[in-house]
């Protein structure tokens, strides 16, 4: 049976992991490749790099990181952040990324999703949706790192990106992100049930049961977390053991 996936996420700027980690024996807590290797060794099912580099002249640095990662880490790698054109998608895939995630650009130019999916295959194209609750049972899509409200319904947008050719959705609850209060399970479930492509739940994980809840209550196909793994609170393996105890199929 297909396993539910656990995906650690690293925020990278100008080639360095932003927050660092508390792994005890890392040579360099800011090196994304070293951290990705660590997660691979712990049994992570994939790794995601979110490139939050602000200045455009430093943006190509991520390509070197991806190249180095592809030489040493033999699990799937998703890279997002700053993807605006099909040329960006191609550069990242050629460097060794397996999937490319797009967010603002997909909203501004839905054709980018369709065009890149047609060119490189929908399995490579992830659309990231940042959603915030606006009323009971309604969530709206935000862009530009959560600064701009589009007014679009997140569930409708999820259906739309599937139709355009996205192969997967990375769904982040802005209400929960950084709170450690757990995923927005109602949002996750509403989106996961609305589409036929896999949905990754993100935003709000504070403990291992939150990860399991994302799958069992939220119907997510994969769960993404950053801080609970970075700061050594839990290992990926512990997370999988808890999910297995909760009756969820995992790769252990």
């Amino acid at each position, binding site marked *: 049976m297909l396993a539910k996936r656990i995906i650690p996420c690293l925020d990278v700027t100008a080639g360095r992991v932003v927050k660092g980690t508390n792994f005890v024996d890392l040579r360099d807590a800011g090196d994304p490749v070293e951290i990705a290797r660590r997660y691979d060794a712990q049994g992570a099912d994939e790794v995601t790099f979110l490139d939050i580099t602000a200045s455009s002249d430093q943006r190509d640095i991520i390509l070197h990181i991806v190249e180095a990662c592809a030489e040493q880490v033999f699990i799937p790698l998703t890279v997002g952040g700053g993807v605006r054109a099909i040329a960006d998608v191609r550069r990242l895939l050629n460097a060794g990324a397996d999937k490319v995630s797009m967010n603002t650009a997909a909203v501004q130019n839905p054709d980018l999703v369709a065009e890149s999916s047609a060119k490189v295959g929908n399995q490579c194209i992830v659309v990231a949706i940042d959603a915030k609750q606006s009323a009971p049972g309604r969530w709206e899509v935000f862009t530009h790192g959560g600064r701009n409200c589009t007014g679009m319904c997140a569930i409708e947008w999820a259906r739309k990106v599937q139709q355009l050719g996205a*192969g997967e959705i990375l769904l982040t609850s802005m209400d929960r992100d950084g709170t450690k209060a757990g995923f927005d399970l109602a949002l996750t479930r509403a989106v996961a049930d609305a589409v036929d492509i896999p949905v990754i739940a993100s935003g709000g994980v504070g403990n291992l049961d939150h990860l399991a809840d994302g799958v069992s209550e939220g*119907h997510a196909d994969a769960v993404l977390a950053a801080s609970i793994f970075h700061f050594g609170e839990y290992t990926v393996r512990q997370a999988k053991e808890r999910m297995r105890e909760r009756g969820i199929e995992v790769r252990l």
Partner: protein
Amino acid sequence: MAAGAIAVVDYGMGNLRSVAKALEHVANGKPVVVTADPAVVAAAERVVVPGQGAMPDCMRELNERGLRQAVIDAAASKPFLGICIGQQMLFEHSEEGNVSGLGILRGQVKRFPADKMHLPDGQKLKVPHMGWNEVKQAGPHPLWNGIADGARFYFVHSYYVAPEDVACVAGTTEYGIPFTSACARDNIFAVQCHPEKSAQAGLQLLSNFIDWKP
């Protein structure tokens, strides 16, 4: 070209870098070359054909780049590993774009049937089939050496192969339906999963391929 080279056939489709790097990782210094040159494919000791994206695009690119015959010759003569679309194209025909394959193995490439994409409890199964799933080995094969029966590999695909000849089924996987996830015949081994992205089990399979003497 150096003796013992492993050629990764580059016909412009997909992430060849990952495949080449994973092979290099286990090649014990044997040269791994990513090549679009039929002569290099012909001279290689063993050949890997990866593939991503859509089967019609893969077939078109293979033909337009003049690599079709080189792949057919390699599959007839030396250790040959097909990965993902590189497995699907060995068959006669694909439902994806209603396109012909190379016809080296008899059978069809089919899409996961929408009416079977759920678990017994009703839970919906998503397509593409994306993630780590178990490969049940049909029997011993040198490429399964050191890999547990039922080990998990990373998959991402919406179509699967349905061989006519059950003797070429080397592994099966369950996703709504049981499907053939690995094929073997003589010097050919082919998998639907991505060994280059399947952590230890995948590296072991690639290492076994490099040592394989069919």
